[in-house]
């Protein structure tokens, strides 16, 4: 059971303009098999926090535990899906998905079996031999997702994976991510700046402030487990949306003013 425990996590960067505190005093918990979305204004440090949990960025203070183990660096039990297209253009879909398994030292038979399973899981059956350049942006993100899922990590971290996609594709892919999660035993932390996406997908939403990034609000999403997109017109959805929007708006304006001031 992989739960994520954040204890007083702090990340500070040294820049020519001085020290920037990107994440400050974050103490939160993602329950095992939970689905939490992290929303916040752009540049608030949500990707940094995710990067710390993935072991790709060192925290300058506090501690991260995943499944009871302190995170000290990358771990194959923690899967990451990046915002940018991370499919390798010189490999076919199958070989892209296999890549994670190859690196992990899985034998060839196991690689093929699990890669095929993951490709089917993300709905890319029939595209195994295609090159990424033949696929749309949404399909490439599915490949990246399949590559992450092929390792069957206990924790999946998603860093605005659909940010570059059009609205329809996002909604569709989001629903699929949720349905895959429902059928699995994985713990998911999903970073996004889209409030509707956060509500539609997750069980809980964390709102992060502009620098220094702190969690200023935690909202439980009390919506039915099966959510079709029409739910956005429900009263409950709108209440949640309003609440998140109100806390975000202030922070976005603050971030905007600070950036304008710096420029």
């Amino acid at each position, binding site marked *: 059971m992989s739960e994520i425990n954040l204890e007083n996590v702090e990340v500070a960067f040294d820049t020519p303009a001085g020290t920037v505190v990107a994440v400050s005093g974050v103490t939160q918990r993602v329950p095992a098999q939970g689905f939490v979305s992290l929303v916040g204004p752009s540049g608030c440090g949500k990707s940094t926090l995710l990067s710390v949990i993935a072991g790709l960025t060192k925290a300058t203070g506090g501690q991260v535990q995943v499944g009871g183990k302190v995170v000290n660096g*990358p771990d194959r039990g*923690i899967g*990451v899906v990046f915002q940018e297209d*991370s499919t390798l253009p010189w490999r076919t879909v199958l070989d892209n998905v296999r890549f994670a398994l190859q690196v992990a030292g899985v034998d060839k038979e196991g690689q093929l079996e699990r890669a095929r399973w993951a490709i089917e899981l993300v709905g890319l059956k029939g595209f195994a031999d295609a090159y990424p350049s033949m696929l749309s942006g949404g399909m490439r993100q599915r490949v990246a997702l399949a590559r992450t899922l092929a390792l069957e990590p206990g924790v999946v971290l998603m860093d605005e994976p659909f940010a570059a996609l059009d609205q329809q594709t996002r909604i569709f892919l989001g629903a699929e991510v949720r349905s895959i999660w429902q059928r699995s035993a994985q713990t998911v932390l999903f970073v996004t700046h889209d409030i509707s996406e956060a509500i539609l997908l997750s069980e809980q939403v964390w709102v992060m402030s502009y620098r220094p990034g702190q969690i200023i609000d935690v909202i439980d999403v009390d919506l039915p487990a099966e959510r079709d997109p029409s739910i956005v017109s429900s009263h409950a959805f709108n209440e949640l949306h309003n609440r998140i929007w109100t806390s975000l708006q202030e922070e976005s304006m603050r971030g905007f003013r600070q950036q304008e001031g710096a420029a």
Partner: protein
Amino acid sequence: MRTAAMAHQSKEPVTVPETTPTGTAAAAPAMSPRRRRRLGDATFSGIATTILVALLAVLCEIGPRAGWWGEEVLPSTSSIVASAADLLGQPQFWGDAARTSLEIGLSIVFGSVLGLLLGLVFWKLPTVGRIFEPYLVSFYAVPMVLFYPLAIVVVGINASSVVILATIMATIPVALNTTVGLNGIRPVYLKLARSLQCSPRQLLTSIALPAAAPFIVAGLRLGVVYALIGSIAMEFVTAQAGLGYRIRYLYEIFDNQTMFAYIFVVLVVSMILTALLVAVEKLLVKGRTQ
């Protein structure tokens, strides 16, 4: 051969970085943007090239016969082809060809290995790369020929002085292109490698080299071309054997007929080699753009 320039133009995110850190001394990969009538274009190119070559051949056939220029300036196509065919039966020609091939072959092998290693070093140690960059860019391959008289004084008039300089000429484009290619790797690939816990070897063979491959391959192509141009040019200055040397020698003993045959063979062989290299390069990076 695309000597440079395109690298910073294309917005294609996968293979061509927007800026080339070496100030575009590097060759851009020979990749054409996706085109719908690709095959049509290639066919058109092929037919047009054939027609152009045929026209040139006919012109050079008629020229001396009609008295537009003398045989001693440029003999007719048919007589050049005939004496070139003659050459192929002469052991001396094969001796020269073997000498030149040996020089070029060795320079390509040494240059490629050295260039790749340097590229890797410049990538891993960016400061070292930036320190050597101005020198590599300014000695971009061909001016090395100017050192040839010095090389023959030090090393002697033999294959090794040619090989040493031609190796340097081949090394420079390979090193520059490898550096540009490696520096242009999209950061997300490196993040991916870290999150999957790739070993340094896996990072190199599965991420870095394939990601930089279009640039490296273009650099290797340039390396081959510069080794060829450099070797023959140096032989032409002075040597004891080789195709370049023979052309000069035949000029000095006024054996025009054989000299033109040699020139013809050198031109044809190097043109075919260049065309082949471009074709191979396009084939190697094919899967990515289609």
